[in-house]
């Protein structure tokens, strides 16, 4: 492994504290700023369980759950991106480039289109949609897409980079299917689906956060286990093998973890693109040669960028807020294009 020089270690030591400070700052900003102007004193009162009922309901029932959901989803997207980039040895991999997001999108679309006939015959309202099931539907689709990638990788004996190209094709097919289904069977639900499809934290509840929490925890808990393989996979498959690494087993494990993280997040908040792609790069850029820092920085930055992106969308759009997916797309594209140009 590449050793960091003392100077680098010293500068690295500042990174995490400043990152955590950034988390706290963005959290505070997200709680205190919003379309409805609430005095800071009322917010503080609401947080401690006192204050006016309106302030309490806005803070506790609207802002906090969407912030927490956003943080969890941001962490999941970012870590999923890091894992995919590492196992495919493609610095530009991302759940939405590998078809995982599109797989989750397809099953969520199917779920949103057809559940009413399963759960609530005869009704057609948003309130009666069992929305808490969405992440589970997304998980199923994302894992299925990951399964296809896995089969292709080992049936066809594809190189990691060819797997990325196959992921692009799978993503295109699944996306076409989802759009076709919405066009053909969307009827009254098109707006609900579009809202979700644009990647939005609008009206996310504690249910969404609670669904994501176990995935975030499990995903983070697995990270130490796959840390060594991740470092080795940064090298070559043959080098990794010479360190006694079973490439196939590690590939499968990391792919599974990353699909589960990305797919459940897509189910909860929709396909937010570019977080999984850009955050690991930023983390690597900041960490320099100090690889152990990449993972914590990825986690921190994923949480911060989604929180801030959502805040920007809420404040700029006003009552008609701009979905976080659009904000990340607009802000992420310049970064992404610059990265694409630079990667050899």
């Amino acid at each position, binding site marked *: 492994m590449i050793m960091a020089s003392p100077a680098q270690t010293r500068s690295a030591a500042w990174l995490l504290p400043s990152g955590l400070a950034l988390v706290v700052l963005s959290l505070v900003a997200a709680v205190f700023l919003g379309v409805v102007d609430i005095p800071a004193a009322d917010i503080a009162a609401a947080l401690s369980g006192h204050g006016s009922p309106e302030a309490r309901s806005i803070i506790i029932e609207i802002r906090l759950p969407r912030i927490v959901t956003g943080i969890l989803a941001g962490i999941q997207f970012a870590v999923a991106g890091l894992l995919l980039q590492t196992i495919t040895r493609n610095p530009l991999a991302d759940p939405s480039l590998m078809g995982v997001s599109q797989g989750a999108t397809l099953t969520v679309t199917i779920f949103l289109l057809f559940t009413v006939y399963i759960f609530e015959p005869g009704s057609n309202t948003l309130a009666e949609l069992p929305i808490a099931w969405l992440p589970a539907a997304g998980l199923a689709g994302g894992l299925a897409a990951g399964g296809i990638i896995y089969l292709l990788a080992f049936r066809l004996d594809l190189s990691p980079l060819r797997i990325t190209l196959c992921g692009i094709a799978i993503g295109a097919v699944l996306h076409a299917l989802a759009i076709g289904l919405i066009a053909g069977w969307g009827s009254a639900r098109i707006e609900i689906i579009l809202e979700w499809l644009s990647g939005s934290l609008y009206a996310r509840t504690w249910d969404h956060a609670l669904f994501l929490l176990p995935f975030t925890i499990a995903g983070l808990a697995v990270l130490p286990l796959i840390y060594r393989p991740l470092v080795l996979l940064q090298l070559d498959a043959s080098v990794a093998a010479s360190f006694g690494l079973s490439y196939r087993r590690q590939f499968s494990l990391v792919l599974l973890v990353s699909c589960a993280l990305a797919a459940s997040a897509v189910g909860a908040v929709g396909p937010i*693109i570019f977080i999984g792609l850009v955050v690991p790069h930023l983390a690597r850029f900041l960490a320099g040669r100090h690889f152990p820092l990449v993972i914590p920085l990825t986690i921190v930055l994923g949480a911060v960028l989604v929180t801030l992106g959502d805040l920007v969308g809420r404040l700029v759009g006003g009552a008609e807020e701009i*979905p976080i997916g659009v904000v990340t797309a607009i802000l992420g594209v310049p970064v992404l294009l610059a990265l694409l140009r630079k990667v050899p």
Partner: protein
Amino acid sequence: MNARKSSFAIGFVVAATLLIVLAGLLPGAKMLSFDTVLRALFAPDAKIDSILVWTLRLPRSLAAAVAGTGLAVSGYLLQSLTRNPLADPGITGVTAGAVAPIVGCFVLLPWISSAYYPLVGLAGGLAAASVTFWVARGGNGRPLHLALGGVSVSLFLGAITIYVLLLAGPQSTALLFWLSGGFQGRTWSHLIHMLPWIGVGVVGALLLHRVIAMFALSEHAAAAMGLQLDVWKPVLLVLAICPVAGVAPVAGPVAFVGLAAPHIARLLKPQGTIWEIALTAATGAFIVTCADLVARTIAIPKELPVGIITALLGGPVFVYLIQRGRLDFQRDVA
């Protein structure tokens, strides 16, 4: 294969396409017999059967054939231009580049006449392709970089498109139908609007077959043979995007045709670039007419979008090409 055999192969594909067009006149919400269709074709009257054939089914099938021709030639040109067997309007972001600004105009600038949509599509497609190629040049034009650049551009434009649909309100249903790609309810006027754009691409490609052949070798070879790269590159790029700009306003994005048609055509081993282009064009027409026929007959009386059918067929072709394409991606390892 010599010229005679090549022209025979093209004749065969064209005949097969015409057969599919003819067969496509029979099925639908009202099934017509072969006799009825022939009578309606050659002795049209004011009866419902003739109207069905002449105003609904025939223009639609022909529109599918013409769109397929254009998309296939566009894919061929992009593959030659980039020397990348995986290039096609979808992968390079051209389709998303053409589609997104059209959706934007439809929703946000409704006073712009739809007659200008091909121009809007051309501008958007050119912009998207320029970004993709600029990105790909960073990777020396390797297949992976081109694909990643194009898909990133497409993802970005897709996110914006969905947001615009969200703003569109009730209009979003119609837009989604169009976005899923298809020829439902397309008329003669759609066909006529599409024709010049596809004509420019196809005729231009046939006329410039020598230039295209030089490009397909390598840029060095082309330059050594005295080709003005700075002049011809943009010309070929515009020729490649014109058909997509023509098809997009009419049929929306129809995926993978531009990728698959040139490869399928090459399986027949036509001799020379000009024959390859002609055969590619015929193959594209055949693929899309078949896909359209399947789309509207597989679930009568409901219709599936053609885009779904071509995606389901094209995805495996893409995977096959990657596995078999003898593309050296290993060098791309960062």
